[in-house]
Protein backbone atom coordinates (compact mmCIF):
# COMPACT_ATOMS: atom_id res chain seq x y z
CA UNK A 1 0.00 0.00 0.00
CA UNK A 2 1.13 3.48 -0.78
CA UNK A 3 1.34 5.58 2.33
CA UNK A 4 2.22 8.92 0.79
CA UNK A 5 -1.28 10.14 0.10
CA UNK A 6 -2.19 9.43 3.69
CA UNK A 7 0.79 11.28 5.11
CA UNK A 8 0.23 14.20 2.79
CA UNK A 9 -3.39 14.27 3.82
CA UNK A 10 -2.54 14.34 7.51
CA UNK A 11 -0.03 17.14 7.02
CA UNK A 12 -2.52 19.13 5.00
CA UNK A 13 -5.15 18.61 7.65
CA UNK A 14 -2.85 19.78 10.41
CA UNK A 15 -1.94 22.89 8.47
CA UNK A 16 -5.57 23.80 7.80
CA UNK A 17 -6.46 23.23 11.42
CA UNK A 18 -3.61 25.42 12.59
CA UNK A 19 -4.80 28.16 10.27
CA UNK A 20 -8.26 27.94 11.79
CA UNK A 21 -6.90 27.94 15.31
CA UNK A 22 -5.08 31.10 14.46
CA UNK A 23 -8.11 32.68 12.84
CA UNK A 24 -10.45 32.07 15.77
CA UNK A 25 -7.98 33.69 18.09
CA UNK A 26 -8.20 36.92 16.18
CA UNK A 27 -10.84 39.15 17.65
CA UNK A 28 -11.29 41.93 15.16
CA UNK A 29 -12.99 45.12 16.32
CA UNK A 30 -15.31 45.61 13.41
CA UNK A 31 -18.41 43.48 13.37
CA UNK A 32 -18.27 42.88 9.63
CA UNK A 33 -14.80 41.41 9.98
CA UNK A 34 -16.11 39.23 12.78
CA UNK A 35 -18.93 38.04 10.58
CA UNK A 36 -16.46 37.30 7.80
CA UNK A 37 -14.39 35.20 10.19
CA UNK A 38 -17.53 33.37 11.26
CA UNK A 39 -18.01 32.25 7.67
CA UNK A 40 -14.36 31.82 6.81
CA UNK A 41 -13.54 29.33 9.54
CA UNK A 42 -16.18 26.70 8.73
CA UNK A 43 -15.53 27.31 5.04
CA UNK A 44 -11.83 26.56 5.43
CA UNK A 45 -12.72 23.45 7.37
CA UNK A 46 -15.11 22.34 4.67
CA UNK A 47 -12.79 23.10 1.81
CA UNK A 48 -10.10 21.14 3.64
CA UNK A 49 -12.42 18.19 3.86
CA UNK A 50 -13.22 18.40 0.17
CA UNK A 51 -9.59 18.68 -0.88
CA UNK A 52 -8.70 15.74 1.33
CA UNK A 53 -11.52 13.76 -0.20
CA UNK A 54 -10.44 14.58 -3.72
CA UNK A 55 -6.84 13.79 -2.91
CA UNK A 56 -7.57 10.49 -1.22
CA UNK A 57 -9.84 9.29 -4.02
CA UNK A 58 -7.23 10.15 -6.61
CA UNK A 59 -4.23 9.15 -4.52
CA UNK A 60 -5.59 5.72 -3.64
CA UNK A 61 -7.25 5.21 -7.00
CA UNK A 62 -10.57 4.40 -5.43
CA UNK A 63 -13.11 2.87 -7.76
CA UNK A 64 -15.62 5.46 -9.03
CA UNK A 65 -18.55 3.28 -8.06
CA UNK A 66 -17.45 3.41 -4.45
CA UNK A 67 -16.60 7.05 -4.03
CA UNK A 68 -16.63 9.93 -6.47
CA UNK A 69 -14.27 12.87 -6.14
CA UNK A 70 -15.91 16.24 -5.37
CA UNK A 71 -14.83 17.72 -8.69
CA UNK A 72 -16.84 15.12 -10.59
CA UNK A 73 -19.79 15.62 -8.28
CA UNK A 74 -19.65 19.34 -8.92
CA UNK A 75 -19.71 18.79 -12.67
CA UNK A 76 -22.69 16.57 -12.25
CA UNK A 77 -24.52 19.16 -10.14
CA UNK A 78 -23.84 21.84 -12.71
CA UNK A 79 -25.18 19.70 -15.52
CA UNK A 80 -28.31 18.44 -13.75
CA UNK A 81 -29.83 21.52 -12.19
CA UNK A 82 -33.38 21.00 -13.52
CA UNK A 83 -33.53 17.42 -12.26
CA UNK A 84 -32.12 18.38 -8.89
CA UNK A 85 -34.57 21.23 -8.58
CA UNK A 86 -37.56 19.03 -9.41
CA UNK A 87 -36.42 16.45 -6.86
CA UNK A 88 -35.88 19.15 -4.28
CA UNK A 89 -39.37 20.49 -4.77
CA UNK A 90 -40.94 17.09 -4.43
CA UNK A 91 -38.99 15.98 -1.39
CA UNK A 92 -38.12 19.08 0.53
CA UNK A 93 -40.80 21.61 -0.24
CA UNK A 94 -43.60 19.11 0.03
CA UNK A 95 -42.77 16.09 2.16
CA UNK A 96 -40.18 17.56 4.52
CA UNK A 97 -41.70 20.91 5.31
CA UNK A 98 -45.25 19.69 5.71
CA UNK A 99 -44.22 16.59 7.64
CA UNK A 100 -41.91 18.63 9.86
CA UNK A 101 -44.58 21.17 10.69
CA UNK A 102 -47.18 18.54 11.45
CA UNK A 103 -44.81 16.21 13.32
CA UNK A 104 -43.34 18.93 15.52
CA UNK A 105 -46.80 20.36 16.04
CA UNK A 106 -48.22 16.99 17.05
CA UNK A 107 -45.33 16.26 19.42
CA UNK A 108 -45.73 19.68 20.99
CA UNK A 109 -49.48 19.46 21.42
CA UNK A 110 -49.23 15.96 22.83
CA UNK A 111 -46.70 17.20 25.34
CA UNK A 112 -49.09 19.96 26.37
CA UNK A 113 -51.95 17.49 26.63
CA UNK A 114 -49.82 15.21 28.74
CA UNK A 115 -48.78 18.12 30.89
CA UNK A 116 -52.33 19.36 31.25
CA UNK A 117 -53.82 16.09 32.30
CA UNK A 118 -52.22 13.94 34.98
CA UNK A 119 -54.28 11.11 33.62
CA UNK A 120 -52.71 11.33 30.20
CA UNK A 121 -49.35 11.91 31.80
CA UNK A 122 -49.52 8.50 33.36
CA UNK A 123 -51.39 6.83 30.52
CA UNK A 124 -50.00 8.35 27.36
CA UNK A 125 -46.38 9.18 28.06
CA UNK A 126 -45.24 5.56 28.40
CA UNK A 127 -47.10 4.80 25.19
CA UNK A 128 -45.52 7.84 23.60
CA UNK A 129 -42.19 6.13 24.15
CA UNK A 130 -43.64 3.29 22.18
CA UNK A 131 -43.84 5.23 18.93
CA UNK A 132 -40.39 6.66 19.54
CA UNK A 133 -38.64 4.08 17.47
CA UNK A 134 -41.11 2.90 14.93
CA UNK A 135 -38.44 2.03 12.41
CA UNK A 136 -38.68 3.99 9.25
CA UNK A 137 -38.18 1.00 6.99
CA UNK A 138 -41.11 -0.72 8.60
CA UNK A 139 -43.33 2.30 8.58
CA UNK A 140 -42.53 3.61 5.13
CA UNK A 141 -44.07 0.73 3.15
CA UNK A 142 -47.16 0.86 5.34
CA UNK A 143 -47.52 4.57 4.78
CA UNK A 144 -47.21 4.03 1.04
CA UNK A 145 -49.97 1.46 1.36
CA UNK A 146 -52.18 3.87 3.29
CA UNK A 147 -51.43 7.22 1.76
CA UNK A 148 -50.35 6.36 -1.75
CA UNK A 149 -47.20 6.92 -3.71
CA UNK A 150 -46.98 10.66 -3.68
CA UNK A 151 -45.58 12.96 -1.03
CA UNK A 152 -48.31 12.50 1.62
CA UNK A 153 -46.94 9.09 2.54
CA UNK A 154 -43.47 10.61 2.92
CA UNK A 155 -44.85 13.42 5.02
CA UNK A 156 -46.49 10.79 7.22
CA UNK A 157 -43.14 9.10 7.74
CA UNK A 158 -41.60 12.45 8.65
CA UNK A 159 -44.40 13.09 11.12
CA UNK A 160 -43.70 9.82 12.86
CA UNK A 161 -39.97 10.45 12.95
CA UNK A 162 -40.17 13.98 14.30
CA UNK A 163 -42.91 13.36 16.81
CA UNK A 164 -40.90 11.76 19.58
CA UNK A 165 -37.94 14.13 19.87
CA UNK A 166 -40.40 16.97 20.13
CA UNK A 167 -42.50 15.18 22.72
CA UNK A 168 -39.60 14.31 24.97
CA UNK A 169 -37.95 17.69 24.78
CA UNK A 170 -41.14 19.61 25.36
CA UNK A 171 -42.08 17.48 28.35
CA UNK A 172 -38.62 18.03 29.81
CA UNK A 173 -38.70 21.73 28.96
CA UNK A 174 -42.04 22.25 30.63
CA UNK A 175 -40.44 21.07 33.85
CA UNK A 176 -37.58 23.54 33.48
CA UNK A 177 -39.08 26.65 35.05
CA UNK A 178 -37.85 27.32 38.56
CA UNK A 179 -39.96 26.82 41.63
CA UNK A 180 -39.87 30.46 42.62
CA UNK A 181 -41.07 31.56 39.23
CA UNK A 182 -43.96 29.14 39.39
CA UNK A 183 -44.76 30.40 42.90
CA UNK A 184 -44.87 33.91 41.53
CA UNK A 185 -47.44 32.89 38.96
CA UNK A 186 -49.43 31.17 41.67
CA UNK A 187 -49.63 34.36 43.65
CA UNK A 188 -51.24 35.98 40.62
CA UNK A 189 -53.74 33.12 40.54
CA UNK A 190 -52.57 32.84 36.99
CA UNK A 191 -54.56 30.32 35.00
CA UNK A 192 -52.94 27.21 33.60
CA UNK A 193 -52.71 28.71 30.16
CA UNK A 194 -51.36 32.03 31.38
CA UNK A 195 -48.64 30.29 33.33
CA UNK A 196 -47.94 28.15 30.29
CA UNK A 197 -47.56 31.00 27.87
CA UNK A 198 -45.91 33.53 30.11
CA UNK A 199 -43.58 31.33 32.11
CA UNK A 200 -43.30 27.70 31.22
CA UNK A 201 -43.07 27.87 27.46
CA UNK A 202 -40.41 30.58 27.45
CA UNK A 203 -38.48 28.57 30.01
CA UNK A 204 -38.97 25.47 27.86
CA UNK A 205 -37.83 27.20 24.69
CA UNK A 206 -34.21 26.00 24.85
CA UNK A 207 -35.40 22.42 25.00
CA UNK A 208 -38.01 22.91 22.30
CA UNK A 209 -35.44 24.39 20.00
CA UNK A 210 -33.23 21.39 20.58
CA UNK A 211 -36.01 19.25 19.19
CA UNK A 212 -36.63 21.61 16.31
CA UNK A 213 -32.96 21.43 15.41
CA UNK A 214 -32.66 17.67 15.64
CA UNK A 215 -35.87 17.27 13.71
CA UNK A 216 -34.76 19.54 10.92
CA UNK A 217 -32.19 16.99 9.83
CA UNK A 218 -34.21 13.97 10.84
CA UNK A 219 -37.10 15.09 8.65
CA UNK A 220 -34.87 15.28 5.64
CA UNK A 221 -33.40 11.83 6.19
CA UNK A 222 -36.86 10.45 6.81
CA UNK A 223 -38.37 11.84 3.64
CA UNK A 224 -35.49 10.71 1.47
CA UNK A 225 -35.32 7.22 2.88
CA UNK A 226 -39.09 6.85 2.71
CA UNK A 227 -38.84 7.40 -1.02
CA UNK A 228 -36.90 4.18 -1.31
CA UNK A 229 -40.14 2.32 -0.70
CA UNK A 230 -42.27 3.54 -3.55
CA UNK A 231 -42.59 6.91 -5.24
CA UNK A 232 -43.65 8.60 -8.39
CA UNK A 233 -40.55 8.99 -10.49
CA UNK A 234 -39.30 12.19 -8.95
CA UNK A 235 -37.75 13.04 -5.60
CA UNK A 236 -34.36 13.04 -3.98
CA UNK A 237 -34.72 9.59 -2.47
CA UNK A 238 -36.05 8.20 -5.70
CA UNK A 239 -33.11 9.60 -7.60
CA UNK A 240 -30.59 8.32 -5.12
CA UNK A 241 -31.96 4.80 -5.11
CA UNK A 242 -32.31 4.54 -8.86
CA UNK A 243 -28.98 6.10 -9.70
CA UNK A 244 -27.24 3.67 -7.38
CA UNK A 245 -28.74 0.94 -9.52
CA UNK A 246 -27.39 2.63 -12.61
CA UNK A 247 -23.99 3.03 -10.99
CA UNK A 248 -24.25 6.81 -11.41
CA UNK A 249 -22.62 7.41 -8.06
CA UNK A 250 -21.82 11.01 -9.00
CA UNK A 251 -25.54 11.73 -9.29
CA UNK A 252 -26.13 10.10 -5.92
CA UNK A 253 -23.58 12.43 -4.39
CA UNK A 254 -25.03 15.39 -6.22
CA UNK A 255 -28.36 14.68 -4.54
CA UNK A 256 -26.63 14.19 -1.22
CA UNK A 257 -24.91 17.53 -1.66
CA UNK A 258 -28.25 19.20 -2.31
CA UNK A 259 -29.68 17.45 0.74
CA UNK A 260 -26.76 18.57 2.87
CA UNK A 261 -27.07 22.13 1.69
CA UNK A 262 -30.83 22.25 2.17
CA UNK A 263 -30.58 20.56 5.54
CA UNK A 264 -27.85 22.87 6.76
CA UNK A 265 -29.74 25.94 5.67
CA UNK A 266 -32.86 24.65 7.32
CA UNK A 267 -30.94 23.96 10.51
CA UNK A 268 -29.27 27.34 10.29
CA UNK A 269 -32.63 29.03 10.00
CA UNK A 270 -33.92 27.23 13.07
CA UNK A 271 -30.74 28.17 14.93
CA UNK A 272 -31.18 31.81 13.95
CA UNK A 273 -34.73 31.83 15.23
CA UNK A 274 -33.50 30.14 18.38
CA UNK A 275 -30.94 32.87 18.87
CA UNK A 276 -33.65 35.49 18.55
CA UNK A 277 -36.14 33.75 20.83
CA UNK A 278 -33.86 32.43 23.58
CA UNK A 279 -31.38 35.29 23.62
CA UNK A 280 -31.77 35.38 27.38
CA UNK A 281 -30.52 31.85 27.98
CA UNK A 282 -27.01 31.68 29.44
CA UNK A 283 -25.89 29.51 26.51
CA UNK A 284 -26.68 32.38 24.18
CA UNK A 285 -25.32 35.12 26.39
CA UNK A 286 -21.93 33.58 26.91
CA UNK A 287 -21.43 32.42 23.34
Amino acid sequence: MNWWPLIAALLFWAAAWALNEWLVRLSPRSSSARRLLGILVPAIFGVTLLILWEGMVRGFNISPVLLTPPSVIWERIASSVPTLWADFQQTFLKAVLIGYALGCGAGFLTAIAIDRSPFLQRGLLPLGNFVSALPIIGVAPIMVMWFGFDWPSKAAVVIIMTFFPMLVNTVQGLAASSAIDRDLMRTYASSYWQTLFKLRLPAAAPFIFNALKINSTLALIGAIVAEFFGTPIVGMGFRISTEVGRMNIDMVWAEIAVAALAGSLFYGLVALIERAVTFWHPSMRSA
Partner: protein
Amino acid sequence: ADDLTLQLKWVTQAQFAGYYVAKDKGFYEEEGLNVDIKPGGPDVAPVQVLAGGGADVMVDWLPSALAAREKGVPVVNIAQPFARSGLTMVCRKETGITKPEDFKGKTLGTWFFGNEYPLYNWLSKLNLPRDGSAEGVTIQKIGFNVDPLLQKQADCITAMTYNEYWQVIDAGLSQDDIVVFNYTDEGVATLEDGLYALEDKLEDPAFVDKMARFVKASMKGWQWAKENPGDAALIVLDNDATGAQTEKHQKRMMEEIAKLLGDGPALDEASYQQTVDTLLQAGSDPVITKKPEGAFTHAVTDKLK
Protein backbone atom coordinates in the same frame (compact mmCIF):
# COMPACT_ATOMS: atom_id res chain seq x y z
CA ALA B 1 -9.04 -25.34 0.00
CA ASP B 2 -9.33 -22.06 -1.86
CA ASP B 3 -11.50 -19.42 -0.25
CA LEU B 4 -14.09 -17.81 -2.46
CA THR B 5 -16.86 -15.34 -1.72
CA LEU B 6 -20.04 -15.20 -3.75
CA GLN B 7 -22.24 -12.10 -3.56
CA LEU B 8 -25.88 -12.75 -4.43
CA LYS B 9 -28.15 -10.21 -6.05
CA TRP B 10 -31.03 -10.74 -3.68
CA VAL B 11 -32.02 -12.23 -0.35
CA THR B 12 -31.71 -15.92 0.26
CA GLN B 13 -34.38 -17.70 -1.78
CA ALA B 14 -34.72 -20.54 -4.27
CA GLN B 15 -33.61 -18.17 -7.02
CA PHE B 16 -30.11 -19.08 -5.79
CA ALA B 17 -30.82 -22.67 -4.84
CA GLY B 18 -28.02 -24.06 -7.04
CA TYR B 19 -25.33 -22.33 -5.03
CA TYR B 20 -26.76 -23.27 -1.69
CA VAL B 21 -27.18 -26.88 -2.81
CA ALA B 22 -23.60 -27.00 -4.09
CA LYS B 23 -22.37 -25.77 -0.76
CA ASP B 24 -24.66 -27.94 1.28
CA LYS B 25 -24.01 -31.11 -0.69
CA GLY B 26 -20.26 -30.63 -0.63
CA PHE B 27 -19.89 -30.04 -4.40
CA TYR B 28 -17.69 -27.03 -3.76
CA GLU B 29 -15.62 -29.00 -1.31
CA GLU B 30 -15.09 -31.68 -3.92
CA GLU B 31 -13.60 -29.00 -6.15
CA GLY B 32 -11.34 -27.84 -3.37
CA LEU B 33 -13.31 -24.66 -2.74
CA ASN B 34 -14.43 -23.06 0.46
CA VAL B 35 -17.32 -20.85 -0.64
CA ASP B 36 -18.89 -18.09 1.45
CA ILE B 37 -22.32 -17.03 0.14
CA LYS B 38 -23.39 -13.48 1.00
CA PRO B 39 -27.06 -12.69 0.56
CA GLY B 40 -27.97 -9.36 -1.05
CA GLY B 41 -31.04 -7.18 -1.04
CA PRO B 42 -32.25 -3.87 -2.38
CA ASP B 43 -29.55 -2.07 -0.44
CA VAL B 44 -26.70 -4.20 -1.56
CA ALA B 45 -25.19 -3.33 -4.91
CA PRO B 46 -23.17 -6.45 -5.81
CA VAL B 47 -20.99 -4.39 -8.14
CA GLN B 48 -19.89 -2.19 -5.28
CA VAL B 49 -19.12 -5.18 -3.16
CA LEU B 50 -17.07 -6.66 -5.95
CA ALA B 51 -15.25 -3.39 -6.61
CA GLY B 52 -14.61 -2.95 -2.92
CA GLY B 53 -13.01 -6.38 -2.72
CA GLY B 54 -15.82 -7.85 -0.60
CA ALA B 55 -16.43 -10.72 -3.03
CA ASP B 56 -14.68 -12.63 -5.83
CA VAL B 57 -17.71 -13.36 -7.90
CA MET B 58 -21.26 -12.11 -8.00
CA VAL B 59 -24.67 -13.00 -9.30
CA ASP B 60 -26.06 -10.05 -11.26
CA TRP B 61 -28.32 -9.18 -14.13
CA LEU B 62 -26.67 -8.25 -17.39
CA PRO B 63 -28.14 -4.71 -17.64
CA SER B 64 -26.76 -3.77 -14.27
CA ALA B 65 -23.40 -5.38 -15.07
CA LEU B 66 -23.14 -3.53 -18.37
CA ALA B 67 -24.00 -0.24 -16.69
CA ALA B 68 -21.25 -0.83 -14.15
CA ARG B 69 -18.82 -1.65 -16.92
CA GLU B 70 -19.54 1.59 -18.68
CA LYS B 71 -19.09 3.46 -15.41
CA GLY B 72 -15.58 2.09 -15.09
CA VAL B 73 -15.92 -1.12 -13.10
CA PRO B 74 -14.70 -3.78 -15.52
CA VAL B 75 -16.98 -6.68 -14.61
CA VAL B 76 -17.05 -9.59 -16.97
CA ASN B 77 -19.65 -12.31 -17.42
CA ILE B 78 -17.98 -15.64 -16.87
CA ALA B 79 -21.03 -17.87 -16.96
CA GLN B 80 -24.78 -17.61 -17.49
CA PRO B 81 -26.76 -20.35 -15.75
CA PHE B 82 -30.10 -18.59 -16.45
CA ALA B 83 -30.92 -18.75 -20.13
CA ARG B 84 -34.40 -17.23 -19.97
CA SER B 85 -35.93 -14.21 -18.31
CA GLY B 86 -38.53 -14.54 -15.60
CA LEU B 87 -39.63 -10.92 -15.73
CA THR B 88 -43.30 -10.23 -16.44
CA MET B 89 -45.81 -7.43 -16.24
CA VAL B 90 -48.93 -8.45 -14.32
CA CYS B 91 -52.14 -6.44 -14.74
CA ARG B 92 -55.56 -6.72 -13.19
CA LYS B 93 -58.07 -7.81 -15.75
CA GLU B 94 -60.74 -5.38 -14.53
CA THR B 95 -58.62 -2.50 -15.77
CA GLY B 96 -59.54 -3.61 -19.28
CA ILE B 97 -55.98 -4.35 -20.33
CA THR B 98 -55.73 -7.28 -22.69
CA LYS B 99 -52.77 -6.33 -24.84
CA PRO B 100 -49.76 -4.05 -24.37
CA GLU B 101 -51.36 -1.26 -26.42
CA ASP B 102 -53.95 -0.92 -23.67
CA PHE B 103 -51.30 0.46 -21.34
CA LYS B 104 -52.22 3.87 -22.65
CA GLY B 105 -53.42 6.08 -19.81
CA LYS B 106 -52.66 3.46 -17.18
CA THR B 107 -50.35 3.41 -14.21
CA LEU B 108 -47.49 0.94 -14.38
CA GLY B 109 -45.49 0.09 -11.29
CA THR B 110 -41.95 -1.07 -11.89
CA TRP B 111 -38.86 -1.81 -9.93
CA PHE B 112 -35.92 0.34 -10.73
CA PHE B 113 -32.30 -0.67 -10.17
CA GLY B 114 -31.98 -1.31 -13.90
CA ASN B 115 -35.25 -3.19 -14.26
CA GLU B 116 -36.91 -0.14 -15.72
CA TYR B 117 -34.90 -0.21 -18.95
CA PRO B 118 -36.52 -3.19 -20.63
CA LEU B 119 -39.85 -1.61 -19.80
CA TYR B 120 -38.82 1.74 -21.24
CA ASN B 121 -37.65 -0.04 -24.34
CA TRP B 122 -40.96 -1.83 -24.62
CA LEU B 123 -42.93 1.39 -24.13
CA SER B 124 -40.97 3.21 -26.80
CA LYS B 125 -41.68 0.34 -29.14
CA LEU B 126 -45.34 0.85 -28.28
CA ASN B 127 -44.94 4.59 -28.83
CA LEU B 128 -46.20 5.36 -25.37
CA PRO B 129 -44.57 8.33 -23.67
CA ARG B 130 -43.84 7.96 -19.94
CA ASP B 131 -45.04 11.44 -19.03
CA GLY B 132 -48.17 10.48 -17.14
CA SER B 133 -50.46 11.98 -19.80
CA ALA B 134 -53.66 10.36 -21.04
CA GLU B 135 -51.78 9.49 -24.21
CA GLY B 136 -48.98 7.82 -22.35
CA VAL B 137 -48.43 5.94 -19.16
CA THR B 138 -47.68 6.88 -15.57
CA ILE B 139 -44.62 5.16 -14.18
CA GLN B 140 -44.31 4.54 -10.49
CA LYS B 141 -41.39 3.14 -8.65
CA ILE B 142 -42.76 0.40 -6.43
CA GLY B 143 -41.21 -1.48 -3.58
CA PHE B 144 -40.35 -5.13 -3.90
CA ASN B 145 -43.81 -6.48 -3.25
CA VAL B 146 -47.18 -6.76 -4.92
CA ASP B 147 -49.21 -4.51 -2.66
CA PRO B 148 -49.64 -1.76 -5.25
CA LEU B 149 -51.50 -4.16 -7.49
CA LEU B 150 -53.63 -5.57 -4.68
CA GLN B 151 -54.42 -2.10 -3.32
CA LYS B 152 -55.20 -0.90 -6.83
CA GLN B 153 -52.54 1.77 -6.59
CA ALA B 154 -51.17 0.56 -9.91
CA ASP B 155 -52.87 -1.14 -12.84
CA CYS B 156 -49.88 -3.30 -13.66
CA ILE B 157 -46.71 -4.19 -11.82
CA THR B 158 -43.51 -6.00 -12.62
CA ALA B 159 -43.30 -9.49 -11.17
CA MET B 160 -41.01 -12.45 -11.43
CA THR B 161 -42.62 -15.64 -12.64
CA TYR B 162 -41.03 -17.43 -9.73
CA ASN B 163 -41.95 -15.10 -6.94
CA GLU B 164 -44.26 -12.12 -7.14
CA TYR B 165 -46.60 -13.79 -9.57
CA TRP B 166 -47.37 -16.45 -6.99
CA GLN B 167 -47.81 -13.87 -4.29
CA VAL B 168 -50.56 -12.33 -6.34
CA ILE B 169 -52.18 -15.72 -6.67
CA ASP B 170 -51.73 -16.45 -2.96
CA ALA B 171 -53.33 -13.16 -2.09
CA GLY B 172 -56.55 -14.41 -3.57
CA LEU B 173 -56.59 -13.22 -7.17
CA SER B 174 -57.11 -16.10 -9.53
CA GLN B 175 -55.44 -16.62 -12.88
CA ASP B 176 -58.66 -15.29 -14.40
CA ASP B 177 -58.44 -12.01 -12.51
CA ILE B 178 -55.08 -11.06 -14.00
CA VAL B 179 -53.30 -10.69 -17.32
CA VAL B 180 -49.61 -11.55 -17.57
CA PHE B 181 -47.22 -10.16 -20.20
CA ASN B 182 -43.95 -11.97 -20.46
CA TYR B 183 -40.95 -9.79 -21.35
CA THR B 184 -39.53 -12.59 -23.45
CA ASP B 185 -42.69 -12.76 -25.54
CA GLU B 186 -42.60 -9.01 -26.03
CA GLY B 187 -39.04 -9.19 -27.29
CA VAL B 188 -37.62 -7.00 -24.52
CA ALA B 189 -36.13 -9.68 -22.34
CA THR B 190 -32.72 -9.16 -20.84
CA LEU B 191 -30.38 -11.77 -19.46
CA GLU B 192 -30.85 -12.34 -15.77
CA ASP B 193 -28.80 -14.16 -13.15
CA GLY B 194 -25.27 -14.60 -14.47
CA LEU B 195 -21.92 -14.89 -12.76
CA TYR B 196 -19.47 -12.00 -12.98
CA ALA B 197 -15.90 -11.36 -11.92
CA LEU B 198 -13.48 -8.48 -12.30
CA GLU B 199 -11.55 -8.27 -15.57
CA ASP B 200 -8.06 -7.83 -14.12
CA LYS B 201 -8.43 -10.83 -11.87
CA LEU B 202 -9.29 -12.97 -14.86
CA GLU B 203 -5.85 -12.33 -16.28
CA ASP B 204 -4.56 -14.70 -13.64
CA PRO B 205 -4.86 -18.32 -14.89
CA ALA B 206 -5.11 -19.58 -11.34
CA PHE B 207 -8.15 -17.40 -10.78
CA VAL B 208 -9.72 -18.63 -14.02
CA ASP B 209 -9.15 -22.14 -12.85
CA LYS B 210 -10.75 -21.40 -9.52
CA MET B 211 -13.73 -19.89 -11.29
CA ALA B 212 -14.00 -22.90 -13.55
CA ARG B 213 -14.14 -25.21 -10.56
CA PHE B 214 -16.69 -22.91 -8.96
CA VAL B 215 -18.93 -22.81 -12.03
CA LYS B 216 -18.64 -26.55 -12.44
CA ALA B 217 -19.71 -27.24 -8.88
CA SER B 218 -22.47 -24.65 -9.11
CA MET B 219 -23.89 -26.24 -12.23
CA LYS B 220 -23.85 -29.55 -10.44
CA GLY B 221 -25.76 -27.89 -7.68
CA TRP B 222 -28.31 -26.50 -10.13
CA GLN B 223 -28.73 -29.89 -11.68
CA TRP B 224 -29.39 -31.44 -8.31
CA ALA B 225 -31.82 -28.67 -7.39
CA LYS B 226 -33.70 -29.10 -10.64
CA GLU B 227 -34.11 -32.78 -9.93
CA ASN B 228 -35.00 -32.41 -6.26
CA PRO B 229 -36.96 -29.17 -5.97
CA GLY B 230 -38.48 -30.07 -2.63
CA ASP B 231 -35.17 -30.85 -0.97
CA ALA B 232 -33.52 -27.87 -2.62
CA ALA B 233 -36.20 -25.64 -1.10
CA LEU B 234 -35.44 -27.08 2.32
CA ILE B 235 -31.75 -26.39 1.87
CA VAL B 236 -32.60 -22.80 1.01
CA LEU B 237 -34.77 -22.54 4.10
CA ASP B 238 -31.89 -23.82 6.21
CA ASN B 239 -29.75 -21.02 4.92
CA ASP B 240 -32.33 -18.28 5.42
CA ALA B 241 -31.37 -16.45 8.59
CA THR B 242 -34.49 -14.31 8.65
CA GLY B 243 -36.71 -17.31 9.23
CA ALA B 244 -39.34 -15.64 7.10
CA GLN B 245 -39.58 -17.97 4.09
CA THR B 246 -42.09 -20.75 3.78
CA GLU B 247 -41.46 -24.16 2.32
CA LYS B 248 -44.48 -24.03 0.04
CA HIS B 249 -43.36 -20.83 -1.59
CA GLN B 250 -39.73 -21.85 -1.98
CA LYS B 251 -40.60 -25.20 -3.50
CA ARG B 252 -42.83 -23.55 -6.05
CA MET B 253 -40.13 -20.99 -6.74
CA MET B 254 -37.61 -23.76 -7.35
CA GLU B 255 -39.92 -25.34 -9.87
CA GLU B 256 -40.30 -22.06 -11.72
CA ILE B 257 -36.57 -21.37 -11.60
CA ALA B 258 -35.92 -24.76 -13.17
CA LYS B 259 -37.77 -23.54 -16.24
CA LEU B 260 -35.36 -20.61 -16.65
CA LEU B 261 -32.15 -22.61 -16.43
CA GLY B 262 -30.19 -23.20 -19.63
CA ASP B 263 -28.49 -26.38 -20.78
CA GLY B 264 -25.03 -25.31 -19.75
CA PRO B 265 -23.19 -22.47 -18.09
CA ALA B 266 -21.99 -20.85 -21.31
CA LEU B 267 -23.38 -17.44 -22.30
CA ASP B 268 -25.52 -17.51 -25.42
CA GLU B 269 -24.22 -14.69 -27.59
CA ALA B 270 -27.55 -14.15 -29.34
CA SER B 271 -29.31 -13.52 -26.04
CA TYR B 272 -26.46 -11.24 -25.08
CA GLN B 273 -26.91 -9.27 -28.27
CA GLN B 274 -30.65 -9.02 -27.70
CA THR B 275 -30.06 -7.60 -24.23
CA VAL B 276 -27.56 -5.06 -25.53
CA ASP B 277 -29.92 -3.96 -28.26
CA THR B 278 -32.77 -3.57 -25.83
CA LEU B 279 -30.66 -1.44 -23.54
CA LEU B 280 -29.24 0.74 -26.28
CA GLN B 281 -32.75 1.61 -27.43
CA ALA B 282 -34.15 2.30 -24.04
CA GLY B 283 -35.06 5.90 -24.77
CA SER B 284 -33.96 9.35 -23.77
CA ASP B 285 -31.71 8.38 -20.93
CA PRO B 286 -30.18 5.03 -21.86
CA VAL B 287 -28.39 2.92 -19.32
CA ILE B 288 -25.54 2.27 -21.72
CA THR B 289 -24.58 4.62 -24.51
CA LYS B 290 -22.27 2.49 -26.59
CA LYS B 291 -21.74 -1.09 -27.46
CA PRO B 292 -19.84 -2.77 -24.65
CA GLU B 293 -16.58 -4.48 -25.44
CA GLY B 294 -15.26 -7.54 -23.67
CA ALA B 295 -18.22 -7.74 -21.31
CA PHE B 296 -18.17 -11.51 -21.36
CA THR B 297 -15.64 -14.27 -21.68
CA HIS B 298 -15.91 -17.89 -22.48
CA ALA B 299 -12.54 -18.57 -20.90
CA VAL B 300 -14.11 -20.09 -17.82
CA THR B 301 -16.85 -22.11 -19.45
CA ASP B 302 -14.46 -23.33 -22.16
CA LYS B 303 -12.34 -24.98 -19.48
CA LEU B 304 -15.32 -27.09 -18.48
CA LYS B 305 -15.72 -28.68 -21.88
